[in-house]
C-alpha cells in the first residue's frame, strides 16, 4: 500500500515537471518583455507553440539518417527522467535512489551527446558550428558542475539529492564560504547549460551568435516540439536543483500526508517564480559575451567550484 502510494507520488512528480516546464519559460519571457517595457507573449504561449509544432509535418533533409529522427525522442526522454529525479516538493521518493547528482549530470550529458550528433547529421556548416561550440562549452561546464557536486557531497556526506536537501534543512550548516562559492558556480553553469545570456542567446537569429539554436536549425514539427520541451525541462531542472539545495525550506520528506505535499508544492511554485524572475532580471541587465570569452567565464566557474572544495577543508577544522 505504501509502495503504491509512493509510486503514485513519484508519477505525480514526473508529470508535474513536464506540466510546469513550459509555464516557467513563458513566465521568464513575460518578465523579460515587461522589463523592456513591452507587453510580452501570454504565459501559456509555450504550450501553444508546442501544440502547434506537434501538429505540423516534419520536413527532413535528404541526408538525414535515423540518428536525426531518433535523437529528439532520446533527448526528451533523458532530460525528462533527469528532471524527475530532482526533488521538487518532496524528497526521498522511490525513484530518486536510482540516480544521484553525478548520474543526473551524466544524463544531461547523454542528451547533449545526441543533440550534437544530430546537428552533425545533416552535413551543413551550421550544425557543425553549434555542435563544436556546444562541446567546448560542455567540456568546461560539466567539470565545473561536478566540482560543485563534490563540494556539496563532501559537506553532506552523500551524492543523493534527497540526502543533500535533508542535510541542508538540518541545523548543522551555518554560513560557509564554500556554499556561497558553490552557489555562484552552479548559477554560472546553469546559465551556460541552458543557453542563456551571457553565454548564448535563446532568441537569436544570427548565425554567428548561435550555439543551441544552430544545432536545432534543421528540426521542424514534432521533433522540434520535443527538443523545445527538453530545453524547458532543463531550465526547470536547474532551478529545482538550486532551490532544493540552497533554499530547501518547505520540502516535504517522503511519507508525510497529502496536505504536506500540497503545501510543499505551493512553496515550490513560489521558489520557481522567484528564480525565474531573478533570471529574467539578470538576462536583461547583461550583454552577451563573445564565444571565446565563454571559456574564461566557465573557467572561472570551474575555479570557483575547486576553490569551494578546497575551502571546505579549512572550515572543517576543529
Amino acid at each position, binding site marked *: 500500500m505504501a509502495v503504491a502510494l509512493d509510486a503514485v507520488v513519484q508519477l505525480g512528480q514526473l508529470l508535474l515537471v513536464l506540466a510546469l516546464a513550459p509555464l516557467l519559460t513563458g513566465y521568464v519571457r513575460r518578465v523579460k518583455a515587461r522589463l523592456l517595457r513591452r507587453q510580452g507573449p501570454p504565459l501559456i504561449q509555450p504550450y501553444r507553440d508546442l501544440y502547434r509544432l506537434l501538429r505540423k509535418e516534419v520536413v527532413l533533409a535528404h541526408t538525414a539518417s535515423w540518428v536525426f529522427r531518433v535523437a529528439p525522442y532520446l533527448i526528451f526522454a533523458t532530460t525528462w527522467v533527469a528532471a524527475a529525479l530532482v526533488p521538487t516538493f518532496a524528497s526521498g521518493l522511490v525513484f530518486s535512489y536510482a540516480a544521484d547528482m553525478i548520474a543526473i549530470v551524466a544524463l544531461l550529458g547523454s542528451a547533449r551527446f545526441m543533440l550534437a550528433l544530430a546537428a552533425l547529421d545533416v552535413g551543413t556548416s551550421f550544425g557543425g558550428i553549434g555542435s563544436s561550440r556546444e562541446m567546448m562549452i560542455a567540456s568546461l561546464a560539466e567539470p565545473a558542475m561536478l566540482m560543485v557536486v563534490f563540494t556539496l557531497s563532501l559537506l553532506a556526506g552523500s551524492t543523493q539529492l534527497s540526502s543533500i536537501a535533508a542535510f541542508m534543512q538540518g541545523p548543522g550548516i*551555518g*554560513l*560557509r*564560504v*564554500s556554499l*556561497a*562559492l558553490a552557489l555562484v558556480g552552479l548559477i554560472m553553469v546553469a546559465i551556460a547549460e541552458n543557453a542563456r545570456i551571457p553565454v548564448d542567446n535563446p532568441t537569436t537569429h544570427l548565425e554567428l551568435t548561435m550555439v543551441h539554436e544552430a544545432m536545432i536549425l534543421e528540426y521542424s514539427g514534432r521533433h522540434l516540439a520535443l527538443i523545445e520541451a527538453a530545453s524547458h525541462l532543463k531550465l526547470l531542472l536547474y532551478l529545482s536543483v538550486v532551490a532544493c539545495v540552497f533554499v530547501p525550506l518547505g520540502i516535504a520528506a517522503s511519507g508525510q500526508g497529502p496536505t504536506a505535499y500540497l503545501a510543499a508544492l505551493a512553496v515550490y511554485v513560489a521558489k520557481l517564480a522567484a528564480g525565474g524572475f531573478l533570471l529574467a532580471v539578470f538576462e536583461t541587465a547583461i550583454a552577451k559575451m563573445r564565444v571565446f570569452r565563454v571559456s*574564461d567565464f566557465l*573557467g*572561472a566557474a570551474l*575555479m570557483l567550484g*575547486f*576553490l569551494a572544495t*578546497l*575551502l571546505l*577543508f*579549512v*572550515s572543517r*577544522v*576543529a
Partner: protein
Amino acid sequence: MDQLALDVAHMFAGGLVLVSFMLLYQDRMSGIVNIFALHALVVSLSVAWQAYIQLAPHLYITATIALVVKAIVIPVALHRIIVRLGIHRTIEPVVGVGLTMLAGIGLVALSIMVMLPITAEAGTLAREDLAFALSVILLGLLMMISRRNAVSQVIGFMSIENGLILAATGAKGMPLVVEISVAFSILIALIVIGIFLFRIRERFDSVDIHLLHEHRGEQP
C-alpha cells in the same frame, strides 16, 4: 566561540580571498581600483566583526581607518591619478589568465597546507584567519608579478597590506599605534608613487614597465 560568530568571520575572510581572485582576473584600470575598494571594504567589515566578537573596541577604530582611508580616500585618489595619466580606459592584456588563476588556486592550497598543521594548538578562528591571510598575501604578490602596469602593481602591494591586517586582527591584541603608523606609511608611499608615476609619464609617455626596463642603463 559562538558558531554564528565563527561562521560570519569565516565568510568575511573567505570573501577577502575571493575578492583577491577577482583582482587577478580584472583587466580594466578603473575596474581594478573599484575592486580594490571592495577589498578594503571587506577587510574593514571583517575587522569590525572581530571587534564585536573579541570585545575589543580599539579595533573599531582600525576598521574605520581601513574603511575611510583604504576604501574611500585612496581609491578616489587613484581614480584621479589614472584620469590625469589618461590610462583610465586601457584594457591591460592579462597574460595567461587561466594559468594565473590555476597558480592562485595552488597558492591557496599551499597556504592552507602550511598554516593549518602548524597552528594546531591555536583557536579555530585564529587558524582560519591566518590561513586565509597568507592566501591573500600570496595572491597579492602573484598579482604584482603578473602585471606590467605600475598602477596594478601598486594595488597588488596594497592588497598584501590588507592581508596583513586580517592576520593581525585574527590573532588577538594588535595595538592601535602600529596600525596608525602602517596606514600613514601606506599613504605616504602612495603619494610618492603617484608623483613618481606622473614624472615617469611626463618623461616617457607611458607607465609600462617594459619600456622602463630598457632605460635602466645596464643594457648595452
